[in-house]
Structure formats: C-alpha cells, structure tokens
C-alpha cells in the first residue's frame, strides 16, 4: 500500500456504500461512474448531493408534520355516532384510562420522535454547512441515534391498521383510517429517507477543512 502521510492519497479513496470495499477513484474523473469491483455498486466518495437532498426531505417532512397532527388518524363509527381521534388524543385516551406507561410510549414515538428527528437533522445540516468543529464524536453519535429511533414512529400507523382490521369487520362499530394517517405515514417515510440521505462523513470533512 502507498504511504498515507499526506492527505492527497487518501482523498482518492472511497468506501463502497453497499459493501464497504475500499476503492481508488481516478483523480479528476468526476463525471465517470466508478463501479465497485467487489459488489458492482456505483461508488461515490460521499452520498451524492447529500445536503440538498436531506434538506428537501426534512422540509417536506416538517410540512407534513402539521396536518399529521391536526387531522384525525382514525374515525370510530359506532351506533351511528362518529368519533375522531388525532395522534395526540389517542395518547391522551391511554393516559385517561390509567395506562400511563403506554401513553408515554405512544406520545414519545409519535409526537416527540419525529420532532426530535427533524430538529436533530436540521442541526446536523446547519452545523455541517457552517463547517463546525464542535463535538464531532457526539454529533456522529446523534446521527446514529436519529437513524435508529425513527422507526418507532410507525406505532400509531400500526394501531390504526390493527383496529381497522379487528373492528371494521364487526357489525356494531366501524373504524376507518383518517386523513391524518396518510400525512403521518408521509412524515415517517420522509424522515427515514432524510436520515438515509444524510452523510455523517460530512461532519468530519468540514471540520478537517477548517482545521487546514
């Protein structure tokens, strides 16, 4: 292997996003697609257009977050009466019925997690764009947490699905998914794609540049 005393030789190395194989990219051949010799995936030094893509997805998710919380996710029709539940009223229902651990989980998974995810990703994006040198390891860890925790937001979508399945077939009551569920599904998908499109290596790139 060539000695890596200067950064210049490292600059041409890229790890394949799919299999992790370390590939040497041709210097100055940015328009040519390099394929990983091991797994045949297209190799990029960084996820392509990471900042723009992640911002677009974060903003989309933030816009969907509002109707997701305002519109009802579920409509219960029993004996001719219709009752609508939003994300928040669903959590409050559990709280009122004395199931506070479950209420806490639902509130955390559906309200706090998406919000924290959006705030954390925005923070990561802004700090990368400003070339921040601040707490690189902790920011990398924050990214890993954001990546791991997002899936739990699906809880409410599943609750609606299960209640629809169990109750809509009976005669006494019907449960329907509301508009809010569609928006909420959108929030979950967009935040997951946003976390996927953010490249944590950018945190270290910018810091390296500002270090000189």
């Amino acid at each position, binding site marked *: 292997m060539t000695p890596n005393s200067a950064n210049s030789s490292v600059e041409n190395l890229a790890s394949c996003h799919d299999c992790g194989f370390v590939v040497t990219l041709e210097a100055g051949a940015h328009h040519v697609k390099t394929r990983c010799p*091991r797994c045949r995936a297209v190799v990029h030094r960084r996820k392509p257009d990471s900042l723009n893509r992640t911002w677009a997805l974060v903003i989309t998710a933030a816009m969907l977050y509002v109707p997701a919380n305002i519109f009802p996710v579920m409509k219960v029709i029993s004996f001719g009466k219709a009752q609508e539940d939003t994300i928040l009223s669903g959590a409050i229902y559990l709280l009122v019925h004395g199931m506070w651990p479950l209420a806490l989980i639902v509130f955390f998974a559906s309200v706090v997690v998406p919000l924290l995810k959006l705030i954390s990703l925005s923070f990561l994006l802004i700090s990368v764009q400003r070339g921040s040198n601040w707490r690189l390891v902790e920011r990398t860890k924050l990214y890993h947490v954001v990546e791991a925790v997002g899936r739990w937001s699906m809880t409410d979508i*599943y609750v609606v699905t299960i209640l629809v399945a169990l109750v809509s077939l009976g005669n006494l009551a019907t449960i329907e998914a509301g508009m809010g569920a569609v928006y909420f599904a959108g929030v979950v998908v967009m935040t997951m794609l946003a976390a996927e499109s953010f490249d944590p290596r950018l945190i270290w790139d910018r810091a390296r540049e500002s270090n000189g």
Partner: protein
Amino acid sequence: MFRFSTTTPSGAELVVPPGWLTLCHACDLLSRVGEVPAGGTARCPRCGSVVYRRIRDSLDRTLALALAGLFLFIAANAFPFLALKMQGNVTDTTLSTGVSALYEQGSPIVASLVLLTTIVAPFLQIASLIFVLGPLRLGIRVPGQLHVFRLLRRVQPWSMMEVFIMGVLVSLVKLLDMAQIVPGIALWSFVLLIPVLAAATSSLDAESVWRRVGFVR
C-alpha cells in the same frame, strides 16, 4: 445453472484475514483492521463507530436462524393473528387483514406502507439471507447472490416487526373495555420471529460474505 466452486471449500467458518484496509462509514478515517478475536469488535480509532465485528460460526448461526425465521414467517402469515370477541360475535383476522381493509377503505398509501414494513421487508430479509448463505454453506455459487446480498442491506431499515408488536399492544389496551381479544398462533410466531431475525442480522459477518460472493462478473 450451478457451478461448483473449486477454490472455496464449504465450511462453517469464513475468516477475514487481518490487515485489510477500511474507511470508517461514519467519519471516513482510513484504518487497518488487525487481528480480531472471534466475538471481538474493531472500532474506528477516531469516532468509535464499529468498523468490523467478528462472530463465531457466523455462517452456520445466521443460516440456522434464517431458516427458523422462514418457518415462523410462514406460520405468522398462515394462521389467525388476532380474534375479536364481542357479544357472541367472533371476528378472526390474519396479519394481512389490516392491509386489505385499509386498501378497501381507500387508503392505499398507508396500506402499502404497512404491507412493506410488516410482510414484504421481513420476507425479503429472510429469503435473501437463505439465498446467499445456503449455497455458500454448500460450497456452490448461484448466479445473482451478489445482487441479492446488496438488496438485503437496502431492505433492512424497512423491516419493522418489533414496532408492529408495540402497535398490537396499544390496540389491545384500547379495545380492552369494548371487547375480548384472543391472540392466535400467528401472533406468537410473529413475536418469536422478531428476536430470531434480529439474532440472524447481528450474527451476519457481511465482510466475509462479500469476500466469497464478490468479484464476479
């Protein structure tokens, strides 16, 4: 169709020889992975992210768990999942009932997302593990192993069975004073499938598999 490999013998242990170069996926630091003892972990010296994990009997373990997972998956989809008893009426549901009910109600987006995350993604996870590791264990090469193994990585984040169980729990509580809920065989299979598939995923040594299935035309 099948080509018997002469260079790689069938075997339980796929060992990655020490000294290979890796770039940290989180911070891009170039480092050399030294001797990692079985069960040991190599971490990035700069940011602490896991760079490589060597698992004892990775191939056998992962394959066995994936096969067990396949049976549990079939059971989880074939048998009744939950039943609702209300004033003498019993409503039986399977895992996919919610998906079709949502679809019929006019929520195709939500229905597809639930279908993807609870049925399609877990199935693809199990199937691709068996498809890639099975032939490896037998010492044969099957065309497409490479592409299927790449697919596995893409599919993983969308498999959300453990979150679905949380949804079941919340639903049960919500229906508690309205009706009686009877869990079926499928529910128990589903609950068992979660740790089995998680164990299969964490016992997989992807680097050693790439070394065996990669570099082909």
